[in-house]
């Protein structure tokens, strides 16, 4: 691949005595799209939360855009600002209108002027097709609209990488598509993405690489074609047979 933007070298992480990540190695190139899947509790969320240091790892190294994440990393906020994240539960700020949700971080973190930030916010809301909802509060939107607003909020920081943690699994079936469509557009626009999802249709459409995790380990890592046509590991086969 071209330039590496994320690199994990034998990362290990424990919650107390319980080891969640076991010797995880991963390289993500610029503009690459990686889909992570695996059974519940296998450590997928933990893995991507480590990438913007919402969780700390205890062993191994994580590099984001060439900077290693350690206890001593001073400007962790700077790195986080470059890594957008979308959560299963949307996590919009309920006390702010949708446009303020989007403009807040550009204003305070990037020190953008209020007017400029609001223009940017409206523009990003347009790309996720909800600019007509800009003045509403999150509680007044449907789940699908909320998740698209959350994507727009992350995009307003102009991140180099986007992390998605099961972005559609809290949604009703009829809303899943509208969110996935936005993500496909984003992928086609050239964004670097790591997506935890069980939407295999989406994976087949956009992913360059598939990762299957089980019990904290990356069990299988393969190109998308290879992964679906010809999975090597028994656990991957079992998993795929269950969800496809």
């Amino acid at each position, binding site marked *: 691949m071209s330039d590496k933007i994320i690199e994990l070298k034998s990362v290990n992480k424990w919650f107390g005595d319980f080891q969640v990540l076991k010797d995880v190695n991963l390289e993500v190139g610029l503009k690459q799209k990686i889909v992570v899947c695996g059974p519940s509790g296998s450590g997928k969320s933990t893995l991507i*939360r480590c990438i*913007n240091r*919402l969780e700390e790892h205890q062993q191994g190294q994580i590099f984001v855009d060439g900077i290693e994440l350690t206890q001593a990393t001073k400007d962790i*906020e*700077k790195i*986080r*600002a*470059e*890594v*957008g*994240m979308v*959560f299963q*539960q949307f*996590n*919009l*700020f*309920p*006390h702010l209108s949708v446009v303020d949700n989007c403009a*807040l*971080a550009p204003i*305070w*973190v990037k020190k953008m002027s209020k007017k400029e930030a609001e223009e940017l916010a409206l523009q990003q809301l347009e790309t996720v097709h909800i600019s007509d909802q800009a003045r509403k*509060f999150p*509680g*007044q939107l449907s789940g699908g609209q909320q998740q698209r607003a*959350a994507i727009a*909020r*992350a995009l307003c*920081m102009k991140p180099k990488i986007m992390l998605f943690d099961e972005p559609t699994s809290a949604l009703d079936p009829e809303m899943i598509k509208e969110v996935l469509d936005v993500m496909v557009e984003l992928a086609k626009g050239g964004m670097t993405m790591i997506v935890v999802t069980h939407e295999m249709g989406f994976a087949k459409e956009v992913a360059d690489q598939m990762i299957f995790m089980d019990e904290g380990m990356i069990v299988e890592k393969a190109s998308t074609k290879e992964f679906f046509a010809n999975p090597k590991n028994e656990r991957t086969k079992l998993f795929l047979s269950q969800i496809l």
Partner: protein
Amino acid sequence: MININKIYQWSRTNLFSNWYNSLLSLIIVFAFIKFIPPLLNWLFFDATFRGSSKAECYGDGACWIFIKVWFQKLIYGLYPENQVWRINLAFLILIFSVITSIFVKPTIRRYIIIFLIFVFPFLAIWLIGGFAIDIESLEIYIPILEEVDTRVWGGLSLTFIIAIFAMLFCFPIGIILALGRRSELPAIKYSSIVFIEFWRGVPLITVLFMASVMFPLFLPGDTNVDKLMRCVIGITLFEAAYMAEVVRGGLQALPRGQYDAAKSLGMGYWQMNALIILPQALKIVIPGIANTFIALFKDTPLILVVGLLEFLGMIKLAGANPDWLGFAVEGYVFAATVYWIFCFSMSRYSQRLEIRFSTERK
């Protein structure tokens, strides 16, 4: 037109739906008939309003002349009468700014609020306490406003001075303590816990005694911190500990996702708390904050124990005056009414805030 049939139907379903409901309704109605008229008689119909001395009170009703005669003292304490305009001016400025803030644009309102929080308290203290430029070495002495010792401050105005200052300072201190208690840094976390648990564990009376009697013992001989100020500091820290626990309740009610989202957007600790966490947490605990403020307001009479006389203290003093013995009931009823009016207003105001800040789907 009153619809008798409707009233009948309503009372059938709401008051007399079964035998114990009917019994309860009858007892309540009986209690009203038995107690309300005598109370009204005492308060108004048999009461004396006109006159200027005890001798003019007649009948079985209340003697409101007592309140009338002592009114000035109940409001201003022993503050020199010819200087009372300074207290009035201070409170007029306060009322004026609060009322204008309701009617102006939000941008201007912001300045008024900044004025009220950062300028007004000190302006008011200067107005009420007086101030003189006194540079001994240069033998310059310019009396700008005659100095009025805090020992003669008193009455309802003192109640407000104490309450406003204590509220103003206990709120931010409480927030800092609440954040401190949840800090990941052990030093900050444990010092917050010790502070909160210490102040919550001692009765306010003890705090005031300590502030007035013990505290000076720890100071070098010639430093003299005003007694009223020591008491206000004591009350502030005491209430701040309660405030901290109220705010912590709000912080705990927020899901972790809010922190995750704020961090993932690159916000630092202070930005995250000021922009995301506190606005939501404080909104949740508006009833608790109002509760603490109301309790604080009603705690102010305790400064009696160190010889400061706010509103209730002045009423007690007036009731103990040899010329006016036997009017304690009128005094306490009046005091209760005044406290109730202010506490109820605070309660209503907090309910209005709750409604204004609610952004949930209705």
